[in-house]
């Protein structure tokens, strides 16, 4: 089946983003297609490549990045959520004259229209939040 996963929550502050990661990994392992990962609201923090947890803790941001790279997933960070929360790509950082662009290269900033599209083109949408 074609699945879309919607993530509302940041790493570390709640378990929900981790659950979304495990669900996504398991879906891929079972042979399902991930049509899209959509990071919304506090979920955009999952795309912050500057995240540096202690070495003995699970690095969720890194895990997402590797999953996305390995399976060539379409991973979108909601642009309006991300701008508010200071997670920018180089283009937005330049546009708003901010010094730091911390968004991981595996993620793409885009709008909620991509979620509407995912509603239409996925068989199932699974949401994770806290």
């Amino acid at each position: 089946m074609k699945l879309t996963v919607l993530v509302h929550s940041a790493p570390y502050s709640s378990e929900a983003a981790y659950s979304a990661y495990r669900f996504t990994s398991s879906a891929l392992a079972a042979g399902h297609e991930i049509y899209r990962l959509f990071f919304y609201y506090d979920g955009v923090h999952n795309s912050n490549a500057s995240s540096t947890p202690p070495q003995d803790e699970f690095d969720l941001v890194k895990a997402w990045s590797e999953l996305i790279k390995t399976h060539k997933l379409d991973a979108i960070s909601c642009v309006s959520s991300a701008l508010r929360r200071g997670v920018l790509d180089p283009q937005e950082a330049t546009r708003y004259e901010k010094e730091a662009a911390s968004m991981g290269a595996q993620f793409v900033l885009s709008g909620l229209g991509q979620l509407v599209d995912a509603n239409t083109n996925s068989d199932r949408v699974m949401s994770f939040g806290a």
Partner: protein
Amino acid sequence: MSTLQSPKTITFISRSTPYGSGRAKACLDMVLSAAAFEQKINLVFMDDGVWQLQAAQKPKSIDAKDLSAALSALPLFDVNNIFAESKSLSARDLDPASLAIGVKACSAEAIAVLIRESDVVYQL
């Protein structure tokens, strides 16, 4: 983005207060986006979400934008199926006739039917 095919029926269940968190605003943004793509939309207020419907909000006092004013614009975007659970309203002593916007008070059973008839359901 792939081409959008026939519109889907999407139900949004808004269960959060208007200003205590950003969730109510985030839910409204999802609704407006779906409306822009001409999806069939149900918007349901449950639990603390009905506080969004309280009349006479003046959020300028906390430097916030008026969420109930934004809600009142929904019919302009052809979002007309707006419901509030009767039980949630009465538990908060909110009179369905004196709310900031017009909503259809409904039972939990009616919400169950909306869910069953939806392609996708979001709760926020």
